[in-house]
């Protein structure tokens, strides 16, 4: 397994990617901790419905989840500056620190809400199909349960990639690094890794002969993704922050 060793991010030749710092506002500091609880509570609240009939439950949870995630990125995270290089990005962030809270609502909407919805759009259009096909590659049923798998993919996408799109934009290089596990760990990236690992580990209980309703597709996968997201975000934002994943 990839290990998060204790070596801090070493400067490479190109501009180094730095871990994402949450915004330096009170709301951000508080909400970033509340958010995982809200997400998990939403999931726990819907869990029985999900076990009873996955498709409608997953579908109806998707919107609240998206709202929560949008709120999270809008309140807590610095939006990407489009095609800006990490260096510029860093500078902008420093600027933020110096003059706290401009207080302009309009600027807030332009700066946060619009990118948040753009990330949602991108998540829906690009990352959901990609993650769904990844699920199929890892053994999701091909001939049946199409909606189940698609919705599971959508949940994983909203959990994992929406915040990442919001903070990193659509730069191909950054995304290659993200997929190759080269970015430094922060709460957003940690959330992504946690979600994907959780979904993978979620397949473990399916073959057991416990004859429980919740063993059916894709309940365990989605559950694993949610729990993995919460753990990954927590660890990424605290313990493992700034570290890089070492392979060899």
């Amino acid at each position, binding site marked *: *397994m*990839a*290990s998060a060793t204790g070596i801090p991010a070493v400067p490479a030749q190109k501009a180094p990617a730095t871990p994402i710092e949450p915004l330096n506002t009170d709301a951000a500091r508080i909400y970033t901790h509340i958010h995982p609880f809200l997400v998990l509570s939403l999931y726990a609240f819907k869990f029985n419905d999900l076990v009873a009939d996955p498709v409608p439950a997953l579908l109806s949870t998707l919107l609240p989840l998206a709202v929560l995630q949008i709120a999270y990125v809008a309140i807590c995270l610095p939006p990407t500056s489009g095609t800006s290089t990490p260096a510029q990005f860093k500078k902008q962030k420093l600027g933020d620190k110096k003059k706290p809270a401009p207080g302009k609502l309009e600027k807030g909407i332009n700066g946060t809400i619009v990118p948040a919805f753009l990330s949602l759009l991108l998540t829906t259009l690009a990352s959901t199909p990609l993650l769904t096909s990844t699920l*199929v*590659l*890892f*053994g999701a049923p*091909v*001939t049946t349960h199409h909606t189940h798998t698609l919705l599971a993919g959508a949940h994983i996408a909203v959990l994992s990639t929406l915040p990442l799109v919001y903070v990193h934009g659509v730069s191909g290089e950054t995304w*290659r690094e993200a*997929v*190759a*596990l*080269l970015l430094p760990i922060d709460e957003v990236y940690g959330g992504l890794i946690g979600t994907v690992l959780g979904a*993978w580990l979620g*397949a*473990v209980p*399916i*073959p*057991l*002969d*416990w004859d429980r309703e919740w063993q059916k597709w894709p309940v365990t996968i989605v559950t694993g993704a949610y729990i993995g997201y919460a753990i990954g975000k927590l660890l990424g934002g605290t313990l493992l922050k700034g570290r890089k994943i070492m*392979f*060899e």
Partner: protein
Amino acid sequence: MAPRKALLALANLLIPVAILVFATGFFPYKPFMPGLAEYEDVTWMSQQGESRGDLQSPEAPFDKLVFMVVDALRSDFVYGEESGMSFVQSLIRDGTALPFTAHATSPTITMPRVKAITTGSIPSFLDVILNFAESDTTSTLATQDTWLAQIKAKRFGDKQGKLVMYGDDTWLKLFPDFFERADGTSSFFVSDFTEVDNNVTRHVPNELLNDDWNAMIMHYLGLDHIGHKAGPKSPNMVPKQKEMDDIVRTIYTAIENEDHLSNTLFVLCGDHGMNEGGNHGGSSPGETSPALVFMSPKLTKITQNQADVQSPMQPKTEGEFDYYRTVEQSDIAPTVAGLLGFPVPRNNLGIFLSEFLGFWDTDSDRTQLLYRNARQVKRIVQATYTSQIFEDLETSSRHTETLECNHLNGGEKLACLWNRAVRQVVGNDTDITKREHLSKFMYEAQDAMSSAASNYDVSRLFLGTGLAILICMLSFFTISSLRPVSSAGLYYSLTLALYAVLMFASSYVEEEHNFWYWITSGWFFYLYLGSLREGKNNSWLLHPALMALVIHRIVRRWNQTGQKFAGADDIVSSGIFHGNNSMLLWVLVGATYLDVTNRISRHIARSVVTLDKAVATPRVDAEPEQQHRMMGSLIATPLCVAAVVFKLAFTAKDAPELTYGISEGIMERVEMLNLVDLARMVFGGIALVFAWILFSEYQRSTRRAKLHIHGNGDLATAFLDMFTLFLLTQTKAQNVPLYLLFRIQFFFLTLLPLTQSQTALTTLLLSQTSFFALGLNNSISSIDLSNAYNGVSGYNILAVGLLVFVSNWAGPVYWSVAGVCLLGGYGENSARETRSDSITTGAKPKRSWVEAEHAHLHDLAKPKAQIADGKQEKDVWTSHVALLTLFTGVMLASVMAACTALRTHLFIWTVFSPKYLFAMAWGMAWHLGVSLGLGGLVWRMGKW
């Protein structure tokens, strides 16, 4: 490096030791009582108080026995509504036949079942191995007490009892020199539906006219063969049942009409059933529910007072196979003994079937029968629970109080039940109460004695497990690259740790394939991520690791396996290969063979050019020219055509529904061919061509040695391709296309720069994956015997055993060899690159993994001394073996620990014991024989 190799060798030598030590503790020979049982004097005061003196044994209603075993005769084949056995059903309705469902305990394969039927005991699991190694003579019943021995010893009138036997030669092996006349048939030719049965039936009319025998045993195999081939719903099944029904009619009519047969008991039974796939060995309801019918015109005496029996009928539980009363298979022995009037065999744990008590008119005779049966069972119980006191008739007469036994357990309870029953027998209760108590004791004894927990040699279990753990430790310390911890090493450890834990979960033993599929998917994705990090490979979508994952996804759906979702749709059974669509299957099969042909012809072309230009050029590797390629194709094509024709002819007999898409004209011609000769032709051709390639490669290697150039693995690749052709011959037609997928996967893997530990892990994962993808799982019933006799005309234990192993472990064997090629970097592209390398520069060929290793070492800038290349090369193989050995050690240790810890578990005989048998095969045959033996050979070939 020497101590390391010594440790590794020691670890590998310990593997068979650990396996055997554990096996002898886990499957002990059950102690049995030698000698024949004899009637003893039994005396008791009957309820009227009159003394009877020594009681005569009750007079037997029958003096002849026809015992007809139909292999795999599941209860519904006789009793169900779709059964073809209408005559037997009419006898059941008339009251001249008594139907039962005879519960067969696991393992449900023929030899242990015959033992249970004849001795009345419950055979140990060891008989499974002996069943496959049939030549073993230690498993005979010649010295044991059986009803056959009793009949032989009994005097019928003025003659000794005589036996005749026709059918499955298992009986002849179990009872050597028992039979007056016998004709055995081998059960391994599973594609034979008619010949095996005709071989039995042709003797029946004559034997029915003979009056010199007292028991005729027949064992029909055709029905079992149909099941193995095409399952219980095969179109051949009902006609076969009708055929069996006709034989029953012939015999029954003779019993009715012939005077010398008038006192004949006719028993029809199955030795085991079959599951929905037509296989057996496990413990599903279908496998453990054979039919058991007693027939005789005299049976009306006991059935006349009964209510009318319905037949055909529905099973009591929907989807199960419980028709009429369910009894134990071992009950057959005491029942036959009682009905023919001889003592119950000594090791019997069966109970006289109470229905037949009606043959005796007096109550005391009935009680005496049960009492003798119970007394014999008591002996075994007494031998097991030596500390308990079992009273005799004489001693018990002193006690009068009634015992309360329900609160006791184990031996105490049995002793209490026995003592209570004995007191009843001498007491003044009615005979019905006496018999109730005797039966109660016997049922409890049967339960207790057949439960698994009683017979382990626990110290050996611990010793075996300890040895396996020692193997793990020894091989762990031989792994070279403990530091720095590589990611492959971490993933390897994760795999081992998870595997060890999962072996304790019965459902994960049944669903083991899911673990391997899951972990392999993860591994390929992980290789993908690792490769992306390097940034060398620009194509992120058509990336080799991703492609390998895509193929893995197809491979895992090829055959549905395991228990939980058994029978779910998979690629093979979805219908795209069946009926008229079978053309699609044969196109894929053709493509697979074409690919192999192409490769083989290239190898031949190379050897032709080597021998052709032996003197002409001093160059080591001459490029094959047009005429050489032509020559290669000319030799390879007939060989592969023969292989395809064999596959076609075999499939026409094996699974005809897969050949309907092919024109009848072709099939008619193909079906005329002799399978054994064809198979020999293919095997011989493969051996011949490989010998030739070997010779030419030897020429090349001597030339290379002169120029001090290392080998580039051409011979190893040639071996892989020739061996693939052999494996294809041993594979069912519907699985042949898998090898095309494997080959493509192999190709993609050669494009990845895998390190040594990554290669070892990939080899392990793909070996396991391919085993399950070929349709096997951890139950004995999944073992496929259909390819066991390819090219073998008689029973040859070595050849058949080898073919059985190869045809079932074909996938793992393929990947072991392919893994060695991966390790050496002998893949498609690298081989060609290295060849051009050596032609142009004569430089030492660089293996892709060596490059990777160097780059990696360089990256980390570790102050590690660079090892000389030659030394490192040798090291690679040792490290590879170390990782494989560690895996085998962990597998054995975890399976053994699970079997030891869970030895009282409900599923110990159905899930964990078969898993241990599979672990034995993995450890001995696959790891030692294939991975190390064959793999080491290929590794050496690559160095030529």
